């Protein structure tokens, strides 16, 4: 196993992307809330919201720094580990990759300006306006990179003749069929995750007995975001399912352990599979639900795995990741819904400790869900790296040193993974909210 460059490259890609995606997702999710908080603060002349924006920005900056670092690694590592894939991708899908770097530029420049100009404008609205390019830049980079990933699932916009790419149409490649559902789901889940992390931080402080109104304002602002984006996530998650049923039926079938093509297909939750018999034990079955997820009709026919040659089956364990993602999605929506009900009906206490604990749990859950979702899509694409054209096994590097690199990068991520929370905690405990509110004059 230690000699197989393909397997090792997959592991290294998995570790790098799995680490990057945490910072990347939060980096896409949080700027909107910073921007909203600052705007509310300016409009209502409420100092607490300005402080909120400042403190969120501080944490955000450190996360972005690690995001930039790991992102740079990915940019190079894709060529180092998958040279033939990047060669092909370069021919057809380099346009969004190229545009992504402009989005990074845009975001990086304005983040630099935003951070160091809190007190430089007479009218604070000018400072708020600087946050808009940050929101646009980070969401645009997520948009562009996701089109690349969508392309890997549904490659379009070229002809392959004797191994050469001809008749390349960059925009067709970029706006491929997987693009709309993927981009919208990735963006809304990033906003959702950002919101839940911010809410979880506020909930944490409230649970620890802090009572300042500042925390309640933070919690409420974030929870509204949680609710809006968890509903949006379920809606376009459902659309993603329909996309799969139509364009990548083998992935949906593998995720659902759906072997025989049938109509009135049932949705399966959990369970243990006997692969030889294709039988499932202990699973919960919801009649018609898979047909509804796939085509919106209880009677619709859903293609099963047995219609595909077995060597093109994705690994079947993605079923669990699919289940977990959906369950977390439902949990997050429920928590934010209950919070809002409690908040607007005075009969209940929206700061109920059990509710706060659930919100606190929601932060890590959202991140896990991001990881599960990506494992579902990426492993569900196996054995293809460019579905229908290139297999993973054909494109890996032939170098004999991937194992050492795997160790090297694992150590790096381990160090960063330990230092990052330590630094963040130190940063925020050193300057407590209360002391900053007292000072009333805050500079970053």
């Amino acid at each position, binding site marked *: 196993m230690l000699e197989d460059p393909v397997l090792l490259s997959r592991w290294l890609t998995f570790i790098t992307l799995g680490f990057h995606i945490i910072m990347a997702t939060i980096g896409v999710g949080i700027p909107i809330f910073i921007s909203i908080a600052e705007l509310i603060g300016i409009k209502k002349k409420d100092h607490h919201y300005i402080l909120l924006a400042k403190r969120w920005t501080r944490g955000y900056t450190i996360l972005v720094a690690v995001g930039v670092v790991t992102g740079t690694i990915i940019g190079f590592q894709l060529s180092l580990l998958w040279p033939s894939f990047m*060669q092909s991708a370069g021919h057809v899908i380099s346009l969004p990759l190229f545009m992504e770097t402009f989005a990074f530029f845009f975001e990086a*420049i304005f983040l630099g300006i935003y951070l160091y100009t809190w007190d430089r404008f007479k009218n604070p609205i000018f400072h708020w306006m600087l946050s808009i390019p940050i929101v646009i830049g980070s969401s645009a980079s997520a948009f562009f990179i996701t089109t690349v990933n969508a392309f890997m699932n549904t490659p379009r916009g070229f002809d392959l003749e004797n191994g050469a790419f*001809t008749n390349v149409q960059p925009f067709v490649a970029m706006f491929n069929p997987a693009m709309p559902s993927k981009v919208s789901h990735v963006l809304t889940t990033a906003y959702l995750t950002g919101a839940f992390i911010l809410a979880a931080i506020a909930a944490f402080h409230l649970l620890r007995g802090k009572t300042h109104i500042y925390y309640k304002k933070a919690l409420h602002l974030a929870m509204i975001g949680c609710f809006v984006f968890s509903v949006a996530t379920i809606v376009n998650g459902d659309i993603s399912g329909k996309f799969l049923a139509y364009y990548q039926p083998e992935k949906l079938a593998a995720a659902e352990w759906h072997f025989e093509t049938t109509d009135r297909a049932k949705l399966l939750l959990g369970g243990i599979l006997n692969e030889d018999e294709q039988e499932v034990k202990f699973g919960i079955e919801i009649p018609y639900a898979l047909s509804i997820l796939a085509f919106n009709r209880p009677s619709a026919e859903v293609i099963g795995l047995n219609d595909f040659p077995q060597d093109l089956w994705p690994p079947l364990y993605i079923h669990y990741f699919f289940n977990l993602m959906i369950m977390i999605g439902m949990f997050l929506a429920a928590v934010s819904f209950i919070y809002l009900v409690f908040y607007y009906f005075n009969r209940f206490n929206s700061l109920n400790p059990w509710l706060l604990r659930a919100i606190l749990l929601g932060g890590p859950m959202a991140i896990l869900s991001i990881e599960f979702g990506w494992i579902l899509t990426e492993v569900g694409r196996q054995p293809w790296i460019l579905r229908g054209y290139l297999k993973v096994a054909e494109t890996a590097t032939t170098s004999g040193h991937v194992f050492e690199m795997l160790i090297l990068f694992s150590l790096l991520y381990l160090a960063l993974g330990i230092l990052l929370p330590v630094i963040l905690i*130190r940063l925020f405990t050193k300057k407590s909210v209360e002391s900053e509110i007292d000072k009333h004059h805050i500079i970053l």
Partner: protein
Amino acid sequence: MIEYIGITVLWVFLYGYLIIGSIDFGAGFYSFYAKITNKKHTIRKVIDRYLSPVWEVTNVFLVFFMIGLIGFFPNTAYYYGTALLVPGSVALVLLSIRGSFYAFANYGARESNVYLFLYGATGLLIPAAFSTVLTISEGGFIIADESGVRLLLGHLFVNPYSWIVVLLAIVSVLFISASFLTYYANSAHDKEAFELMRKFTLIWGGPTILMSFLVFLTLSTHNPEHFQAMVEESWIFVLSLLSFLAALWLIYKKQQIGIAFSLVCLQFFFAFFGYGYTHLPFILYPYLTIYENITSPEMGITLIMAFIAGLFLLVPSLFLLLRLFIFDAEYVKGN
């Protein structure tokens, strides 16, 4: 045509990275130096004020070059990607340590000698690692045959040319950075920092030129073809030398420091473009040329259009950044 536009755009961005990256890398080194010699208050403040707002932008230049290279010349991904796994990964780890530790030290608001040491040391190691890629592009270190593409790491280690390029990279970083910080300290009216950085500029000027000559000399045996092309276009390198002399003279005389720094930029502009121009048509000698490995015209034209559109976004934003932080006298002075 597309291949020329493509390679020019890429080379311009690499030049941009060379200048602002050098300022950043060198500043890390000087920052560390100031700390261990207890000159903290003279240059650290100047360095921090410049670096804090711009470090992320520096990194994007590098990413841009790399993604653009794959876009315009996809086959480079295959050759360099396969050959450079080990050195590339090591460079990436260094870059990561540097970037994250800068952020930790700066925003995490805790002075730590370990962070600063890592920050300073990586500032010299990274340019050394990157310059090796230019060496490799001269040929002789990568072989491609039926069994794949391989890097002859052993050859690289015993080759005089490759070591001289590394030395040139390091002294250039120190020189460029010192000359910029001289200028910045001057605008900040920080006398002490100015004197110190001026001294460093003068100190590193000599080795920079010496190493450049040695690079010429060793290239003549390593890649005679490229050397010949350089000799034919020697006027570019003469211009580079003249800019260098003028810059050093101004800094020595303590006059027109802003122009002096521009002249340093010009010095490297001429040298870098002279080098790049005479290196053509090869991207990797003798395997990759810009003619045979350019992407399809459809993609090439789209990339160029995207690039032009991107510039409309980028140039005003960069201008704003520069105005607010580099050319704003009040900010530079620390008010």
